[in-house]
């Protein structure tokens, strides 16, 4: 990794975290409604993964989508505007936090029905295969999503049709309040790929460099015709499942343990230890993020609400 990439990825991770901390604040103030699922603690997963993609690679994920959106190049101000339901938001205020998307950046959205986007990912990959395009579809989902039928149908289909998909399970140890071993017959999610004869691997999701290297290798294999693969990335969400989670299912000590391997801290140390950055440069990135967020909040708060006509817009392509 070169210095420029290192600083860029560090910037993205900090930007994700600060955007979400700000979102949590705006939620407490009642300015954001509905559900808000924070990605804090998982930043290295999408940052490492998406840093390995080529522009033609499609990305699709679940409702915990703010981080991925930032990594795919959606501006923080448009993400915050969407959360505030403003017309300047990426989905014109009609989607909200769970439904960010920017098709022009090959980001095919946050999807709120658990597991439902996996068959869609198979279809995206089929589109590329059919049209002889060399994109790989990167489909991200949680550990909990691997227990619903959609996951199994999609994996099987992708293997049978040899689709260019990278299935990425973000194993953050819980699906809502249910620990992996209370809901999944196997404790390593990657084992589920075995049943479909699918190449699989597992990587530490608190370590951006490890995620990035694994993703680079697998994406190039898939691009060269390996067929679909599954990558399990182990990680942890520091916050509740969504805002207002009573968190009776885990102990604070467990959270603290994972906080000791904070993905941003680990990457910061990596950059310093490998001479890729000095303290002052990283602090400058922190400051730049601070300023970006400040401007993003002003933009989002001062943006207009959608007009009433927006209610009936985009129901169909043809009226």
């Amino acid at each position, binding site marked *: 990794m070169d210095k420029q990439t290192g600083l860029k990825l560090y910037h993205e991770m900090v930007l994700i975290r600060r955007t979400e901390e700000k979102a949590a604040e705006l939620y407490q103030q009642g300015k954001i*409604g*509905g*559900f808000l699922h924070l990605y804090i603690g998982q930043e290295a997963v999408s940052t490492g993964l998406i840093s390995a993609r080529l522009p033609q690679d499609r990305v699709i994920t679940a409702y915990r989508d703010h981080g991925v959106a930032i990594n795919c190049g959606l501006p923080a101000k448009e993400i915050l505007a969407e959360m505030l*339901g403003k017309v300047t938001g990426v*989905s014109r*205020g*009609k*989607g*909200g936090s*769970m*439904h960010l998307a920017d098709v022009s950046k090959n980001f095919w959205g946050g999807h*709120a*029905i*658990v*597991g*439902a986007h996996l068959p869609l990912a198979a279809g995206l990959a089929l589109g590329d295969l059919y049209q002889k395009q060399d994109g790989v579809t990167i489909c991200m989902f949680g550990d*909990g*999503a691997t*227990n*619903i*039928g*959609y996951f199994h149908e999609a994996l099987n289909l992708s293997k049978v049709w040899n689709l260019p998909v990278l299935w990425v399970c973000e194993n953050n140890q819980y*699906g*809502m*309040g*249910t620990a992996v071993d*209370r*809901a*999944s017959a196997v404790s390593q999610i990657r084992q589920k790929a075995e049943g479909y004869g699918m190449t699989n691997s597992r990587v530490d999701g608190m370590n951006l460099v490890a995620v990035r290297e694994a993703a680079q290798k697998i994406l190039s294999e898939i691009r060269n015709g390996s067929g679909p693969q599954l990558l399990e990335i182990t990680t942890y969400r520091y916050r509740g499942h969504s805002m207002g989670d*009573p968190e*009776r*299912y885990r102990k604070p000590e467990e959270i603290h343990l994972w906080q000791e391997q904070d993905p941003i801290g680990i990457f910061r140390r990596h950059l310093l230890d490998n001479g890729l950055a000095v303290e002052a440069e990283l602090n400058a990135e922190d400051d730049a993020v601070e300023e970006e967020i400040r401007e993003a909040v002003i933009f989002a708060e001062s943006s207009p*609400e*959608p007009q*009433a006509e*927006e*209610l*009936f817009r985009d*129901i169909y392509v043809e009226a």
Partner: protein
Amino acid sequence: MAKITMREAISQALWEEMERDPKVFILGEEVGLWGGTYAVTKGFFDHFGAERVRDTPIAEAAIVGAAIGAALTGLRPVAELMTINFAFSAMDHIVNEAAKLHYMFAGQMVLPMVIRAVGGGGRQLGATHSQTPDAVFAHFPGLKVVAPGTPADAKGLLKAAIRSNDPVLFIEHATLYQTRGEVPDGELIVPIGKSKIQRLGRDVTLVTYSKMLEVSMKAAEQLAAEGIEVEIVDLRSLRPLDMDPVLESLKKTNRAVIVEEGWKSYGVGAEIASRIYEEAFDFVDAPIKRVAQAEVPLPYNRTLEQMALPNAADVVKAVKEVL
């Protein structure tokens, strides 16, 4: 008589039935350790244990399917779907299994089961998490569909549903959980398939249920201030549908407005209006009006979402139009 919330009423019904009958058990996502996403089963896991309050993986088809299987063996499962929107992930089992087995096998198979599902819009949860698809489920013969609008009805109907030998879909409205109402002390059973007059009036018959009962009551107060007295019929069960109180009321008022939260097209209002025209055409003095959700997937933005949902002002307007 105690004044309790809808949440407490539902919780009490479950608790009492589980205490009464060891064959009753709960299964669903986050019903145990978490205490229920809407806190309905808070305390159940500690009291009844993991055998009877079963946390499941995220697998709606398996939740409903396993409930069907367990019911066939004589147990009385209460399957919880975190929201009714996820019932679509279990649609085959609801529609092609639960609603059909008893009939298709000529009565050999009996399914004493309840599916509890939380529905409704108004909380900025976006298009996939805000639906009121009650009419969809009421379409299928073989399934009973119940949707209470008051705590007392919720308690009594849920107890009846648990004791019923037919599969019952019990729809709770997410924004009614905090609603308080009088609930009689002691044993309370409200029979499934009985509509109820919730307010007496002479001018217009309002037919409604669930959350829209609250909205209709509010509209009724505003109208009363202007000297217009509406009679409100609460359907409570969508299938079987009890038209008697609706027709009786209509024969008195000769005018009807139907208020539902779901979409108008092919909805509850369409069914009720047709039934009135079929069964009491001669008594209808003005075209029946329907108040329903705008025909759009619900948006996240609060103002747009509220615009799309029916409110008291819409009901007042419709009542004045039929007068």
